[in-house]
């Protein structure tokens, strides 16, 4: 471009002489004049600004020991599921901001699952009940006066309880004081207490009643097990106590820090679960055949349980597994999620035969995480049928939704004269009741738990009640006539604990720790014999598809369907969000002429469920897999207005997906295509790595020969860069993710979402690939071969029968040679001298060049302003980082706010952050501790040590991005496959030059 040089700087030069004289402005004075007007303009700017006053209202009295802007952690107990892990709730300026696992808690040891991380949505959810609810407002009901409403409700309930024949239906209640309250309520009102779990583990308890004389669920010890054989027990997903089990399991799977051995994990299952995906060997066994496989194993172990029916597992494999179990002996463990009591008895027999009781299975102290009793529930339903129940009190359960015969329960409920619910929501069941005593959120009240016998934990309020709700136990005490306990439940709880539990510990200490561990070794009941296992080896026959249902990984048993974070969290395996699905093996799909996105109706008898078909390689053939928990209609606004899916299922229905509970006991049914359904919100649509080494794996056998096995680079990076090499003189932050330990549980995704103000975008936007998660877990089906030696590639999708799975957490890799930094026209993304790739939101103009140039696809663009539709939800936002607005790019910052916080804390003592002092949100919550963050410049840091591990590699290192995030090769404890051996030999032939160190 030509630069003009003829621009006149003195525009007065051409002015007529007379005018010029009149104005009498010399060039000097004109400059002064411009100064004056310039100041005026500045004045105008200032005037414009001062129009926006920001007010600040300090407290009248500052609570002692609380400083504004400083977060405090309070020990509490997670109540999202009945596993009841210990938490530390981070509270800042009076509001809970983030839940973290309690690192001193013997159960979860710092880990927390997706649900636990998402609990704050439930707290701030504006859709929960704000006060007591009456189906028909009685006379004098004052909409504005909650006190009057509670009085009105309590009076009505007192009347109803006098009617006699009271039943109290709850979920698992394991807290000692909570159980005392229930006892008090039952004594006072003559009520009978019945507990059930929507996703029940009762068959395990029932089997132990028969084989050991005591109905209890044992406390499993995966940390003692060297051979784990699981039959449909999803213990890394959501079975009984998943975080605890994952941590225990990981202990024997960890090959870091010089460990050389791994446990063996063999999974027999009908669907593909996260646990199965992490197993060393996995066999596809339909539910109908499970008993036959079990009987076959038991027979081979020396039992005589009849001729097993025909099943899919080759005899040679079974023989091998039995041999391994026999060798492991008391270090073996067989678990099952089976709902067949006979099968569970057989499991007990096998475990007893191995000597596992007392070693990998503890019957004392035992688990109290699922106390539901299906038999008692069935008895209650019978009573309801006979009309014997006059008053039914329901607490925290939703049987109309989550019983297989929920519709019938609804009819029976209508016939009960007095129905009272204690609930957070006017859910499907509570809205059928006369009264709802609106329940406090878990974070608003005191409570206690005993997840494992003798392990007593406390939950304390971390926020003042947001609305006019009341603790469930307070309600029960009130109705039992204990006004004092109802008024001040903390005092009741403290009194109870001081009398029965603390045993010398100060109350304040117990509150601070959150745990009073009084587990003691006591004599466990002995095995008495397998009992009735007749016909356990037979294979049930049925027509059409076998229907397999499972507790959804994100919605729990359906309780959390109103939680937007959880709805947007994709299923770890089929990678669908905001939807239920009918998953099946691609081979079955091909045989039945079904395609992904077809809307099918699964039908068994009267029960139906409509869902879109998704692919689940690894599911047994002719099996349709349905998640439980979808189809809630009364779960707040989150399940409404998500539009298309609900309309496709049923135009009159406002729910996400269809309820699969009615099919949960069906066994067999039909699958019919009823339409097509294109807008399937899949977060990942490509299953294969296309032979590229992104998520690497190897076999233990080969790894023992050569620790670089599986990690040989075919293409070494060419170290060329446009820029001067970075020098990291102080810290150089980095992260190492051990693929061997990642179970794909999504907890890191949720922790990141809560910590970093990551918005949800809704189904339609996810369908447009516009999800905002800063960290995602890629799930790849391994490109290995089928039994017939053929690998089938159908377009992008693998159609393997039983592919191996590898999970890979993928977040910003914080490249040293970052492709994004080079292309940003406004330097909104830059490199820090501590090795981080920084995104500066206030500088970003949204060109999206960076996202286009990112080879890892980890940058997220704000296509809209994702505002909370209710301001209450804004309370969940982390005040330590920006809430991004429309048109801005964002991505993982490696929790920059935590790094600076850690550095600041250390600098106060003139030190540097110690290794392990700064924990990123994803690392902190990881149940298996697969993620390690630290300073790579510190040679002794864990992250630096793991950087030198032969398994360490960077993803697509060949393009020389030099990421700060590296991975450790997954090692499978199974015999090496021929192609793996061949690859290792090939790399040896080429020498070791290509290693990525």
């Amino acid at each position, binding site marked *: 471009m030509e630069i003009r040089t003829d621009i006149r700087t003195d525009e007065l030069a051409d002015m007529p002489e007379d005018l010029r004289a009149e104005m009498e402005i010399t060039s000097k004075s004109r400059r002064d004049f411009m100064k004056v007007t310039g100041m005026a303009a500045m004045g105008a700017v200032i005037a*414009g600004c001062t129009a926006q006053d920001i007010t600040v209202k300090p407290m009248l009295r500052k609570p002692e020991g609380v400083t504004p802007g400083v977060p405090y952690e309070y020990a509490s107990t997670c109540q999202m599921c009945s596993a009841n892990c210990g938490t530390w709730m981070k509270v800042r300026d009076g509001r809970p901001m983030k839940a973290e696992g309690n690192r001193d808690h013997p159960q979860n040891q710092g880990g927390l699952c997706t649900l636990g991380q998402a609990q704050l949505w439930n707290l701030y959810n504006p859709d929960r009940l704000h006060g007591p609810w009456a189906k028909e407002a009685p006379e004098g009901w004052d909409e504005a006066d909650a006190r009057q409403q509670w009085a009105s409700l309590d009076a009505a309930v007192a009347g109803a309880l006098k009617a006699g024949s009271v039943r109290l239906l709850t979920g698992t209640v394991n807290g000692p004081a909570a159980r005392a309250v229930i006892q008090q309520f039952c004594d006072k009102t003559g009520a009978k207490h019945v507990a059930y779990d929507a996703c029940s583990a009762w068959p395990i308890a029932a089997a132990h009643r028969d084989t050991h004389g005591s109905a209890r669920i044992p406390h499993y010890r995966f940390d003692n097990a060297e051979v784990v054989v699981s039959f449909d027990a999803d213990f890394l997903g959501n079975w009984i106590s998943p975080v605890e089990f994952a941590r225990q399991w990981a202990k024997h799977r960890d090959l870091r820090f010089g460990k050389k051995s791994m446990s063996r994990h063999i999974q027999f299952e009908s669907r593909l679960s996260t646990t199965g995906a992490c197993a060393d060997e996995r066999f596809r066994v339909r539910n109908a055949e499970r008993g036959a496989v079990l009987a076959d194993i038991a027979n081979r172990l020396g039992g005589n349980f009849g001729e097993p029916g025909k099943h899919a597992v080759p005899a040679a494999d079974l023989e091998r597994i039995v041999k391994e179990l026999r060798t492991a002996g008391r270090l073996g463990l067989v678990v099952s999620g089976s709902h067949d009591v006979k099968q569970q008895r057989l499991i007990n027999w096998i475990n007893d035969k191995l000597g596992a009781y007392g070693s990998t299975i503890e019957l004392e102290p035992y688990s109290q995480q699922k106390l539901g009793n299906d038999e008692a529930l069935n008895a209650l339903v019978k009573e309801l049928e006979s009309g014997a129940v006059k008053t039914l009190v329901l607490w925290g359960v939703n049987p109309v939704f989550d019983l297989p015969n929920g519709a019938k329960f609804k009819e029976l409920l209508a016939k009960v004269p007095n129905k009272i619910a204690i609930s957070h929501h006017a859910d499907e069941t509570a809205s059928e009741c006369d009264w709802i005593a609106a329940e406090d959120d878990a974070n608003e009240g005191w409570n206690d738990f005993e997840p494992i016998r003798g392990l007593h934990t406390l939950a304390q309020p971390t926020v003042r009640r947001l609305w006019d709700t009341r603790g469930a136990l307070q309600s029960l005490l009130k109705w039992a006539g204990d006004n004092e306990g109802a008024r001040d439940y903390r005092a009741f709880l403290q009194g109870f604990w001081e009398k029965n539990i603390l045993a010398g510990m100060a109350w304040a200490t117990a509150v601070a720790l959150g745990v009073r561990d009084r587990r003691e070794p006591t004599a466990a009941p002995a095995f008495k014999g397998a009992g009735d296992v007749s016909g356990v080896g037979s294979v049930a026959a049925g027509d059409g598809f076998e229907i397999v249902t499972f507790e959804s990984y994100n919605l729990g048993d359906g309780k959390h369907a109103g939680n937007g974070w959880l709805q947007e969290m994709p299923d770890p395996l089929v990678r669908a969000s905001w939807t239920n699905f009918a998953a099946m093996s691609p081979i079955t799909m091909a045989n039945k002429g079904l395609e992904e996105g077809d809307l099918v109706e699964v039908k068994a008898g009267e029960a139906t469920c409509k869902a879109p078909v998704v692919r689940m390689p690894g599911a047994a053939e002719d099996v349709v897999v349905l998640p439980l928990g979808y189809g809630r209609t009364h779960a707040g606004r989150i399940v409404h207005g998500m539009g298309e899916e609900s309309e496709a299922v049923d135009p009159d229905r406002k729910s996400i997906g269809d309820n699969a509970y009615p099919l949960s006991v069906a066994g067999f049914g039909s699958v019919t295509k009823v339409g097509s359904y294109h807008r399937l919100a899949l977060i990942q649509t490509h299953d294969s790595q296309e032979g590229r080494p992104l998520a690497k794996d190897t076999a233990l056998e080969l790894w023992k020969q050569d620790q670089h096995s599986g990690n040989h680079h075919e293409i070494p990076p060419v170290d060329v860069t446009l820029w001067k090499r970075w020098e990291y003189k102080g810290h150089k932050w980095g992260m190492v993710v051990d693929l061997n330990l990642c179970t794909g549980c999504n907890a890191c995704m949720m922790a990141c979402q809560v910590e970093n103000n990551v918005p949800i975008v809704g189904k339609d936007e996810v369908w447009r690939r516009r999800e905002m998660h800063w960290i995602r877990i890629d799930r790849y089906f391994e490109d290995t071969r089928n039994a017939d030696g053929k690998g089938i590639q159908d377009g992008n999708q693998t159609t393997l029968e039983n592919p191996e799975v590898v999970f890979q957490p993928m977040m910003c890799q914080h490249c040293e040679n970052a492709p994004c930094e080079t292309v940003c026209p406004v330097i909104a993304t830059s490199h820090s001298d501590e090795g981080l790739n*920084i995104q500066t939101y206030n500088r970003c103009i949204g060109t999206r060049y960076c996202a286009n140039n990112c080879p890892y696809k980890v940058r997220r663009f704000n296509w809209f302003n994702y505002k909370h539709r209710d301001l209450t939800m804004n309370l969940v936002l982390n005040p330590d980082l920006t809430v991004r607005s429309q048109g801005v790019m964002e991505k993982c910052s490696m929790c920059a706010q935590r790094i600076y916080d850690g550095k600041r804390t250390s600098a106060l003592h003139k030190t540097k952050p110690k290794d392990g002092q700064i924990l990123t949100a994803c690392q902190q919550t990881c149940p298996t501790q697969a993620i390690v963050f630290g300073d790579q410049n510190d040679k002794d840091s864990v992250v630096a040590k793991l950087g030198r591990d032969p398994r360490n590699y960077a993803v697509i290192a060949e393009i020389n991005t030099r990421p700060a995030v590296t991975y450790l090769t997954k090692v499978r404890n199974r015999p090496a496959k021929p192609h793996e051996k061949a690859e290792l030999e090939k790399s040896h032939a080429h020498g070791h030059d290509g290693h990525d160190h």
Partner: protein
Amino acid sequence: MNAKLAILFLMLTIGTAMPVLLGIRDTFDVQLANLHTGYQPEQPIPYSHRLHAGYLNIDCQYCHTAADQSRHAGVPNLQTCMNCHNTVKGNTTESKERIALLASKFADGTGVEWKKVHNNPDFVYFNHMTHVRIAKNGEGFTCQECHGPMENEGVAHQQNILSMGWCVNCHRTWNEEYKKQGWEPAAPLNCDACHR
């Protein structure tokens, strides 16, 4: 003549610039960051720093207690005021009225809604504790180094521009000094030190 013309131009400029700037601000919801120098909002009670911090020589952190512990320096809670004003009732009509207003707002629990004088934009994460306790190798800055001599003024106003250039210049200048003295950690110049 000159002066008249100047005034005319001044008014014209203000007349055109004001609506344009206000328009820009309101339309795009832009916060015109860090140009608040001189901002002195009218406070519900015209508290004088000169009297308290200057004449009475009360330490800044007697009231702004969180300055050495938190991101925020903290606006004092009313109990802090009442520590003295339970007995100090004022000696002029005006001061008696003001103290009585304060006492009544404390007694009836309504509290006082102060106007915030120093407002960083939402995307700036300034931390008081770092500057008060960690900077200068632990010596820390005095409040006056950023806020100016508050002890000399009546109702508080913003004395320094507090713009990004102002912050960064200080960080750069001090880093030179840090280098000379061999202190650690240096004042960071990474974007994420303030923007995240």
